[in-house]
């Protein structure tokens, strides 16, 4: 199911100089803000939770997910170099599964790790806040990577659609319309984070069982459908 060569090509494509730079901007920003907040207002659980929930989980994780998820396959389909993967005796789902693993790993590395570091800076993991948001970021990384990988096989404008989803749906609608919150990866991840803290400093609009089911369903369906898309991907259209 997992092909190390496909993985290597995907990593090298994803972590090329320019993209790695873009991936690194938000985590650096998060840590800089955390350092500033900590030095100005000291350790405050509520401020830590607001920053990790409002910036790290609501903005940084989905954006990193968009870049890593769509970037794991979109550019290859776009420029046609995916032909070198497709013209091999490799099952198409193997290609998708491998790329998903890479996208998840990259999203986790660039979102969950800085979230944890920022949490430690902000309040030294008081009330388990750092761990809770890190776990939430890890969980969200999986679902985002799967969703945006699928998006990369569906449209040439995957990054735009991905950002619209991440910023408009998750951030804007999520805060205005309560129904949208049920269908939000962020809220599902928060449900898992809530379980970790045990207290009410991290809350979600979705119950843990619902969140778990939705996370699994979305991840599995998106991955399966991306495999189907790749099976029927055609490479003509230059004439």
């Amino acid at each position, binding site marked *: 199911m997992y*092909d*190390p*060569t*496909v993985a*290597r*090509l995907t990593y*090298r*494509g994803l972590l*090329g100089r320019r993209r790695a730079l873009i991936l690194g901007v938000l985590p650096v920003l998060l840590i800089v803000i955390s350092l500033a907040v900590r030095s100005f207002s000291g350790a405050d659980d509520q401020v830590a939770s607001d920053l990790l929930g409002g910036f790290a989980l609501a903005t940084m994780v989905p954006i990193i997910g968009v870049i890593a998820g769509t970037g794991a396959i979109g550019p290859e389909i776009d*420029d*046609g*170099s995916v*032909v*070198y*993967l*497709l*013209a*091999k*005796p*490799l*099952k*198409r789902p193997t290609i998708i599964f491998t790329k998903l693993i890479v996208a998840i790993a990259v999203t986790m590395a660039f979102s969950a790790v800085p979230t944890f570091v920022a949490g430690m800076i902000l309040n030294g993991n008081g009330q388990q806040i750092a761990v809770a948001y890190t776990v939430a970021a890890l969980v969200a990384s999986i679902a985002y990577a799967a969703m945006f990988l699928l998006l990369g096989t569906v449209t040439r404008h995957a990054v735009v659609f991905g950002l619209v989803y991440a910023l408009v749906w998750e951030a804007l609608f999520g805060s205005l319309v309560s129904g949208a919150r049920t269908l939000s990866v962020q809220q599902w991840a928060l449900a898992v984070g809530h379980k970790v803290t045990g207290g009410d400093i991290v809350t979600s609009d979705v119950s843990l069982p619902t969140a778990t089911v939705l996370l699994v369903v979305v991840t599995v369906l998106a991955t399966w459908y991306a495999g189907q898309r790749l*099976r*029927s*991907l*055609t*490479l*003509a*259209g*230059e*004439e």
Partner: protein
Amino acid sequence: MTTLTIDHVSRWFGNVVAVNDITMTIGPGVTGLLGPNGAGKSTLINMMGGFLAPSTGTVTLDGEPTWRNEDIYRHIGIVPEREAMYDFLTGREFVLANAELHGLGPKAADRALATVEMEYAQDRKISTYSKGMRQRVKMASALVHDPSLLLLDEPFNGMDPRQRMQLMDLLRRMGDEGRTVLFSSHILEEVEQLAAHIEVIVAGRHAASGDFRRIRRLMTDRPHRYLVRSSDDRALAAALIADPSTSGIEVDLAEGALRVQAVDFGRFTALLPKVAREHGIRLLTVSPSDESLESVFSYLVAA
């Protein structure tokens, strides 16, 4: 023995028919797929390579369908027309990755790089390669698993004459080894130099098939049209029409020229200057009026 069979294959995109009911069999040796740009060559090659489903009909390699059949790639090597190829890798890394995807190791990669004589630049990034170097590395990636069928889409595009000769030698060798090699081109001379067997596609239809001499004859024996201006058009017209190589002449008063239709190309081209000299007529303009590749091809379709 590897035989690629295209059986009543059509492909349309919306209302546009790109490939129209083509049936052909490609056997061992080098075959050229000739046709003007936009004739449907790439669409056909994409269907041969299993990257596009035929709308109707079947494409099979020794009886196995090429569409949605990943195992077929154990036998097919593909050199796509598009340039993109993981430019951030070195040539060797790229060919090695292709070998690994076939379950092979560095030995196969090195052998393929040696075949295309690219060892000298194998450790440079692909992004620094010239067009011809890219083409050779693409070729190495297609040869790495020693395929019995090689599909190349416009492989000579953008190559300089020396690179073209090298690639032709290589393809000829592949054909002589008993591989089935198919390449597309819109340039007759390219195809003629390399392929013993030619398939001609025009506007999505299979226009001609056979050895290059037959096709060459079809192309040169068609009626040729010339626009001729001279110091005495009417005297020239009278002298030309007396010869059987000329089948018709029109005096175009608006253009101030003759429109000549010649049926015997070779004879007419020798006759015209001779007649002019004998009658003391100066030739001012002699220009073929239908020499574009498209008109040559459309004549073939009608033939």
